[in-house]
């Protein structure tokens, strides 16, 4: 279990990005974190990843305090961040340096096949499309079999079609070993498609505002009325988190509102 206890972050310039954020996340749970810009979503994720230390409060994974990057925690960023001087296969195997070469090759080959890029093993990252590169990044993060996988707006730079494709693909991969997924997103659609639970954050200072359980079986039909209902309640919560008046949301919503900024 991943336990966040009163995690706060104040930057040296005095800005408080995160205030007393607490949450318990079960092993294997998929949690989406959503909120207005400046609500500390990414700060929170970076604290869990051990990339930035929280000013106060604790992050513990299975009773082990996290203060620096941990072998059981993987992260996928908004950009693929592949190492341009390594082939696709070597990028995926980057986190397996301690394994013997045979075992590493085997795992990399399996991961490549799993993300559908077996024919790109020897390609350079510059030769990949955006979606392919992000798939390599996912494979790279998953191949050391982390218990927790953090995703910082992983699909926001992709076109709508590729994004859907990768969301489904991510769920498919998740089912293999069922790591805990913590996903920061701007996209209400994405949160409801992927998450068991949506955490809505409120800005200035960033803190937890609301939690919405998504009690929907998988695979989820993005067009079902139930799906629409959950989307609406997340959107309503988001509007309230920003102290906006809640407009009367009827069935004739424009498609633009699915992407919530």
């Amino acid at each position, binding site marked *: 279990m991943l336990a966040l206890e009163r995690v706060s972050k104040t930057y040296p310039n005095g800005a408080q990005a995160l205030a007393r954020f607490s949450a318990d996340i079960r092993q294997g749970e998929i949690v989406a974190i959503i909120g207005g810009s400046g609500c500390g979503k990414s700060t929170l994720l970076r604290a869990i*990843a051990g*990339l930035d230390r929280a000013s106060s409060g604790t992050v513990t994974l299975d009773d082990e305090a996290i203060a*620096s*990057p*941990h*072998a059981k925690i*993987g*992260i996928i*960023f908004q*950009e693929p*961040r592949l*190492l*341009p*001087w*390594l082939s696709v296969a070597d990028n995926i195997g*980057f*986190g397996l*340096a301690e394994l013997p070469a045979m075992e590493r090759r085997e795992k990399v080959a399996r991961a490549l096949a799993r993300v559908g890029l077996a024919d790109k093993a020897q390609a*350079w*990252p*510059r030769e990949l499309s955006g979606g392919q590169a992000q798939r390599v990044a996912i494979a790279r993060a998953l191949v050391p079999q982390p218990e927790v996988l953090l995703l910082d707006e992983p699909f926001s730079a992709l076109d709508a079609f590729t994004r859907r494709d990768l969301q489904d693909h991510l769920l498919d991969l998740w089912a293999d070993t069922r790591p805990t997924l913590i996903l920061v997103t701007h996209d209400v659609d994405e949160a409801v498609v992927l998450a068991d639970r949506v955490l809505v954050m409120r800005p200035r200072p960033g803190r937890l505002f609301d939690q919405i359980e998504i009690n929907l079986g998988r695979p989820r039909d993005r067009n079902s009325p139930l799906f629409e209902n959950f989307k609406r309640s997340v959107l309503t919560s988001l509007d309230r988190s920003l102290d906006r008046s809640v407009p009367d949301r009827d069935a004739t919503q424009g498609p633009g509102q699915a992407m919530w900024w």
Partner: protein
Amino acid sequence: MISDAPVLQQTSEPAERAAAPSRLSRYAGPALGLVLPVTLAVGWELVVWFGWSNGRLVPPPSRVFATITELARSGELVRHIAATLWRVGLGFAFGVVAGTLLGAISGYWSLARRLLDPTVQALRAIPSLAWVPLFILWLGIFETSKIALIAVGVFFPVYLGVMGAILIVDRKIVEVGRTFRLSGFAMIRRILLPAVLPAYVVSLRVGLGLGWMFVVAAELIGASEGLGYLLLDGQQLGKPAQILAAIVIFAILGKLTDWLIEVAAAPFLRWQDAFGRAKGA
């Protein structure tokens, strides 16, 4: 009737035109660079040939070439080239190793940078030839002081190149290393050095250029063999052809070794997604 012919021509011409520029442009670039030196050389050769100048102080290319073949036939040339190459090679190796190590350390650890860099920068400000008397006192007149001088010349561009390039490595790439728990030498080896490799190759080439510069200085000061010695010998005995011969060989060796670095580095830089690559491909 008049309009028929041009139409027919137009259909056949584009195909020929498409093939011609690619063949032309492949040779035109290098060939264009040769126009000026070849014209000058041939021109001067003719001037001496016609007796408009005796070519005593500025010998024509044929005489320079004759000097080179003469030196080559007596085995002198190989001895001098070997001596110089040996000095440059050793000095370059020491300079590169020291420059890379210290550059990487002060690029990566800010404490080391604050400790080390001001001193290195201050030393860099000293014209390197100013070390010559000291090196001769410390290391003697023979090989050691020469190699040390060359190493000093090579060290600074390599050190600066490595440190400067590490400082501007993309933070996002470094973070990838951090998420895989790399730090210290593992971070330098697996993330920072590969990331700076293109800049590193450039600084190696600059360093090598300085190495060739300093070997001349070292050999002018006191040597009994080497291309620099040939220069000095030519001056003292009034043999401008020998001086020019040495200069020509310096040019060839300098270009050749520079090209060697470029060729040796190319396989490691194939991953680059850069402006220069697109032009080359």
